[in-house]
């Protein structure tokens, strides 16, 4: 398989227009820092989230027609910083500060936090009532993250001391297929997409992902690119793994109900078993281990888990509200292939 290469998407407003126009030219020039950005709803702002997503994507992928040295161009980083500020503020507004008692056992606090997941019952809805079209939409949204599953969390590796680092690598080795490229979780997801008649090419559906879907990925990339957020990055992974087994069983059940076989459900079935292992390592050895060795980031671990659940909840509400109105939750509906 060739390296990742995405197309520049269509801009969605002045920020993405300015950024994409500059990216088409030589690096280090022509990208003036925008003034104060004050979107009314930064978390779901189409222009802001798309511009931030593409700025971040330089770290994951090639972009057709874009010089790769843009990745570390000071003008790009300064532009990106102006986008990050309102996004980070919007996320922080959703997350209450950690309580002192929670910091005594970060593992136990994470268990409490995920037990009170603020999200709507999306997986239960999909399991019991999801039509083929809605299941496909959910998969297309998720492909924004799943085709690079585990990658942003790998940025924590060089930043952790031995005990939490060992725990992270134990999880990541399994995420990356335990030594088998075919079993890499991102590859399993691509197989599921292909089995559903979707295009598993990395970035293929970028134009269809709404701002709130981009925000779910921008959140973890934001934590991953900034070393100071290593606590939040670890908390994000723990929260992700701890809320995975049961929903993934439900998504697998939805596909079985719709008549799909093991080649399509394997990604979900694998995650039921894998994440039942990972969640314990992530909560107690990784997050707990990091909190024990660097108590000053313990509160940020809980921030990362809470931020994940809040942004995911907002995303899930978007899907369910759109479907309730009888509309697509994507920016443009999937056209059924020769139905």
């Amino acid at each position, binding site marked *: 398989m060739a390296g990742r290469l995405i197309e520049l998407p269509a801009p969605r407003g002045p920020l993405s227009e300015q950024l994409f126009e500059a990216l088409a030219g030589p690096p280090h020039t022509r990208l003036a820092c925008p003034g104060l950005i004050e979107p009314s709803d930064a978390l779901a702002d189409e222009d802001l989230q798309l511009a931030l997503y593409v700025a971040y994507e330089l770290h994951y992928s090639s972009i057709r027609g874009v010089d790769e040295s843009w990745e570390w161009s000071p003008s790009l980083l300064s532009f990106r910083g102006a986008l990050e500020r309102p996004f980070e503020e919007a996320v922080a507004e959703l997350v209450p500060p950690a309580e002192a008692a929670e910091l005594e056992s970060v*593992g136990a606090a994470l*268990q409490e936090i*995920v037990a009170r997941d603020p999200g709507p019952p999306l997986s239960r809805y999909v399991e019991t009532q999801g039509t083929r079209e809605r299941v496909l939409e959910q998969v297309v949204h998720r492909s924004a993250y799943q085709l690079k599953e585990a990658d942003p969390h790998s940025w924590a590796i060089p930043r952790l001391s031995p005990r939490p680092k060992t725990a992270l690598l134990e999880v990541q080795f399994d995420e990356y297929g335990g030594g088998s490229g075919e079993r890499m979780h991102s590859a399993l997801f691509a197989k599921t997409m292909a089995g559903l008649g979707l295009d598993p090419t990395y970035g293929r559906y970028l134009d269809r992902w709404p701002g709130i879907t981009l925000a779910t990925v921008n959140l973890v990339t934001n934590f991953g690119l900034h070393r100071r957020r290593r606590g939040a990055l670890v908390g994000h992974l723990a929260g992700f793994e701890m809320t995975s087994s*049961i929903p993934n069983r439900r998504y697998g059940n939805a596909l079985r109900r719709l008549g799909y076989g093991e080649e399509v459900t394997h990604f979900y079935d694998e995650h039921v*078993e894998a994440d*039942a292992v990972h969640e*314990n390592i992530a909560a*107690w050895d990784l997050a707990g281990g990091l909190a024990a060795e660097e108590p000053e980031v313990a509160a940020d671990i809980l921030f990362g888990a809470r931020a994940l659940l809040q942004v995911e909840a907002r995303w899930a509400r978007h899907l369910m509200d759109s479907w309730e109105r009888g509309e697509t939750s994507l920016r443009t509906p999937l056209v059924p292939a020769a139905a």
Partner: protein
Amino acid sequence: MPADDGSPPATITPYPDGPYLVRGDFALTDQQGNELPLERRTIALCRCGKSRMRPFCDGTHKLIGFKAPSGPEPWPGA
């Protein structure tokens, strides 16, 4: 016992309110001694009894409020 190839001995770790994680050099067998195929190096065995894919954990303990410490439980009434 460490295996001849130098791989670490098996360890079994009960996780708080969760499954047993098994690591190292081990085999999982049924009562007839048939080896169960393993999908990963570290496995989680059900401790709450309610998994739908026993002997492996599927996360169901979170739905039923399973509580158990990682270390030994104190004697009842102690």
